[in-house]
């Protein structure tokens, strides 16, 4: 059997002082799309932040292997360069830094690490234009400061654009559907779907089933109280939509 893209074993992790993840097991193979659903406070975003290495989030026990390597040994930027991408729930604004410049620096940092030649301004512009079509993004947003004054939908498009440019192996989408109207959701989902492929894995974190109508997962996991309490095929998402999270929480409490 090949090495999994991501292998999480009995992961316990804290956010600040609080133990949030209490024994997560999850294996993701290349090409697979996994959805993680769960009620507020179940640990969904903590899982995303632990994978990306956000300061303040600590692995207490258990392990996270990325292509067989211990992820806890890598700084956030090293993880990014190795191919882990996090689409943020709340993308951050950076005043005075043009979006175009920011993206170019990021792409070249990743390319340098991978031993690929860095792009000059013209080459990058060409690449960016091509990828911008994926998320129907306008030139105007590229010359503005990173996320500054962007609408919710524009910020999320910008996230998916970055994902397209950085060409990650594992993309973690943290509540990418939050704050989107139905049209924006469709655009984002189309962009994400276009990026699916046999070598790329995705972990789609969401509260609602509706995103999964557009980005159809191979597997669905339900997170509750810091553990995965139920896993299944895409139909599980529909069941959750119908019954809410209550029955699963009740079931897992009983079991």
């Amino acid at each position, binding site marked *: 059997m090949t090495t999994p893209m991501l292998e999480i074993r009995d992961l316990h992790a804290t956010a600040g002082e609080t133990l949030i993840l209490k024994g997560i097991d999850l294996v993701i193979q290349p090409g697979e799309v996994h959805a993680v659903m769960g009620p507020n406070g179940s640990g969904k975003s903590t899982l995303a932040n632990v994978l990306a290495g956000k300061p303040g989030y600590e692995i207490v026990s258990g392990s996270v292997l990325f292509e067989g390597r211990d992820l806890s040994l890598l700084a956030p930027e090293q993880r990014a360069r190795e191919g882990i991408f996090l689409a943020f729930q709340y993308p*951050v604004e950076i005043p005075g830094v043009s979006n175009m410049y920011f993206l170019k620096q990021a792409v070249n940092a990743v390319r340098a690490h991978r031993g690929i030649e860095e792009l000059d301004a013209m080459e990058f512009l060409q690449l960016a234009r091509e990828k911008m079509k994926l998320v129907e993004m306008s030139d105007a947003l590229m010359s503005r400061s990173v996320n500054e004054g962007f609408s919710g939908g524009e910020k999320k498009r910008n996230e998916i654009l970055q994902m397209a440019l950085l060409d990650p192996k594992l993309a973690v989408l943290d509540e990418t559907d939050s704050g989107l109207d139905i049209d924006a959701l469709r655009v984002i989902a189309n962009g994400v779907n276009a990026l699916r492929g046999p070598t790329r894995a995705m972990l789609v974190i969401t509260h609602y089933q509706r995103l999964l109508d557009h980005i159809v997962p191979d597997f669905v996991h339900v997170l509750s109280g810091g553990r995965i309490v139920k896993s299944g095929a895409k139909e599980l998402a529909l069941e959750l939509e119908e019954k809410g999270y209550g029955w699963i929480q009740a079931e897992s409490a009983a079991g």
Partner: protein
Amino acid sequence: MPNESLEQLATRDYEFGFTTDIEMDIVEPGLSEDVIRFISAKKGEPAWMVEWRLEAFARWQKMVEPHHWAKLSYPPIDYQAIRYYAAPKKKIQLDSLDELDPELRRTYEKLGISLDEQKRLAGVAVDAVFDSVSVATTFKKELEKHGIIFCPFSEAVHKCPELVRQYLGSVVPVNDNFFAALNSAVFTDGSFVYIPPGVRCPMELSTYFRINASETGQFERTLIIADRGATVSYLEGCTAPQRDENQLHAAVVELIALDDATIKYSTVQNWYPGDAEGKGGIYNFVTKRGKCAGKRSKISWTQVETGSAITWKYPSCILLGDDSVGEFYSVALTSKRQQADTGTKMIHIGKRTRSTIVSKGISAAHGQNSYRGLVRIQKGADGARNYSQCDSLLIGSECGAHTFPYLEVANPTAKVEHEATTSKIGEDQLFYCRQRGLSEEDAVNMIVNGFCKRVLKQLPMEFAVEAQKLLGVSLEGAVG
């Protein structure tokens, strides 16, 4: 000639003012009338200049060092322990850049300073210098063609004494403040610029200046006059780190803009800031002031201050002419144990005078950064307007940022706006950048440069690029 370095060439200019009857080229420490007479004699100055210096000295003796109001702390300065005259020294000549301190060389490279420029700064004698010399000569000819006078101050005293006499001390009087008085008494050299009526100076006076900048000296004096309808952009300083054995620096810069004239004065200051413990850095007490004497005149200051242990500096504008405009764009960065108390004064006297203040303070490590700015609208300044924006950025938790705005409005038709923000480089911003593959250091640089953008874009293009890199280099080791 092929082996003659620029340093020698530069000092040769200074020789014009020297008289041969004084053989000493250094004086004992201490300040007295005799020392001032000695300096003046060394420069071959006319009697009125000596009198002017002595007057300044007399005033200075009655003044006290302004130690109480600035938010700076430093040990007392012993003014009698300072040596007030030493003939310009030649730098030690190196045969190649390989002999240069590797750390300095790395810094040059990080700043993107060209090889030729590096050699010049390091005093390497090579053929490349030859090119610079011919460039300098070409510039000089071009300037002369337009009737522009641009020369060392000591030369101007002889070349155009009436201009010097008319304007020297007309913006910063000898008794203006303690450090200005000291400078007036003992200054050794500096730059003089005169742009005749209607002439637009055809080049940034930076390139030329940078080629000639060798020993800027401890007490520097600069006087720039833009006659009616003239325009000039002047660039002072250098992004390359500068060391000096003199710890105290007290320069004076005076600008005069007549009717419809424009002066743009840009500074990048990178004097040695001292080590991480704050030892050995330069004390920089500078008086810079411009007078918009004429109608519709404009004076614009842009400064990027990253060096010195102590920075005390308030480039100001006196808006005397109706419809005149004053601007102040500043980035001040303090790291290590650096302290900066800097800002501006905008004095609105003429009608419909306008001023803009944009100040960006960055504090890192144990740096202390204060903005101190005065906006005064005098009684006759009908319809005057001011806009001030003062932003502070903190990196880490040991540093400090302070804002001291002073506002005096004596005319009810004036409009004054002030905005101020203080922010910390957010963990979230840093993490966002790092998640995209940028190192923490690159992320900080990017955020800082974004923060300073409004000021940096005021700088001439090439210099803005260097200044951006300089901010990054200055923050090295302050993060993480």
